[in-house]
């Protein structure tokens, strides 16, 4: 069903010098502590990371609950901040699809798509033959997802010991990890342009709309980078 050799190879990606475990762990420890502070039980906190597994979405959920937002507003806010998962999925799954593999694997394992697992897969897929990529991906997904759930528990239990200085330190780890991974991914003109323009336009569109800036900025930047890249490749 799942080729254990490739599954374990994917699972092993949480070790070593490119490990996402510290970054993921730090941010989900912070989430665990935050959820405790807004009144979640430990079961609810685990359930939240288990089902959502997307950091910005969980943060938006917590912030919306604090201000007492309605369910429909929470839905819209979370959908907006996590809509980036759509282009991420579309730019990953075609690389993993193989006709010998059952479809349920793709529909279930898309739950594992989050920034760190996605960047690791994008970094490594060429080394895996196409038929086995989905099993490798499930390995990465289960590993990163487990780290996230485990860290939520740690953060929840340790929240009394986490003062503001520690939490601020934890909060910067994830953006730094993502920034370094993105800088490391800048190997072609198209991707470099996408990243640089996205980093400039995302915050620039904040002045137009704080809620839509990621989508507006991202779509504009990506489209411009694509067009310049296509002309350049000809």
């Amino acid at each position: 069903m799942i080729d254990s050799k490739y599954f374990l190879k994917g699972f092993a990606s949480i070790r070593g010098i490119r490990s996402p475990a510290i970054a993921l762990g730090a941010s989900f420890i912070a989430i665990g502590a935050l959820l405790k502070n807004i009144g979640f039980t430990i079961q609810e906190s685990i359930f939240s990371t288990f089902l959502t597994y997307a950091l910005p979405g969980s943060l938006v959920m917590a912030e919306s609950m604090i201000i007492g937002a309605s369910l429909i507003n929470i839905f819209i806010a979370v959908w907006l901040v996590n809509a980036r998962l759509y282009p991420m999925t579309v730019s990953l799954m075609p690389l993993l699809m193989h006709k010998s593999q059952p479809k349920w694997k793709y529909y279930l394992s898309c739950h594992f798509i989050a920034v760190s697992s996605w960047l690791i897969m994008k970094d490594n897929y060429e080394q895996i033959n196409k038929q086995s990529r989905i099993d490798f991906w499930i390995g990465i997904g289960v590993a990163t997802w487990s780290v996230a759930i485990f860290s939520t528990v740690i953060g929840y239990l340790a929240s009394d010991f986490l003062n503001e200085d520690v939490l601020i330190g934890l909060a910067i780890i994830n953006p730094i990890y993502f920034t370094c991974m993105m800088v490391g991914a800048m190997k072609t003109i198209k991707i470099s342009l996408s990243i640089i323009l996205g980093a400039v336009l995302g915050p620039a569109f904040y002045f137009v709309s704080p809620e839509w800036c990621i989508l507006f900025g991202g779509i504009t930047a990506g489209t411009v980078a694509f067009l310049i890249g296509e002309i350049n490749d000809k």
Partner: protein
Amino acid sequence: MTSNIVLVILITSFATFLSRFLGVLSSENIKETSKIFRWFNCLAYSTLAALIAKIVIFPSGLLSEVDYFVRIIVVILSIGLFFITKKNLVYPTIFSAIILSLFNSYL
């Protein structure tokens, strides 16, 4: 405070899974050599970059209490360390947390 926590969690996860699910559905008809795939690849990297830049420049929550200038310095130093350590991801992340806490306490 919104009352029913389980309902909020379900709504949050549904709003998140929706984009992933629709992504797989669309992927069934997209070849990795096609133009649309290359376009979406750019969109994925650019929206990620937009998200991360927004978190650093206009953070919500605790990071917003750190001075704007300090946040930028920490990012630049960490990228420098990333290159010095031959693209090690563990050192810059740990370094960033320590140096931000120090800057925040003593500057």
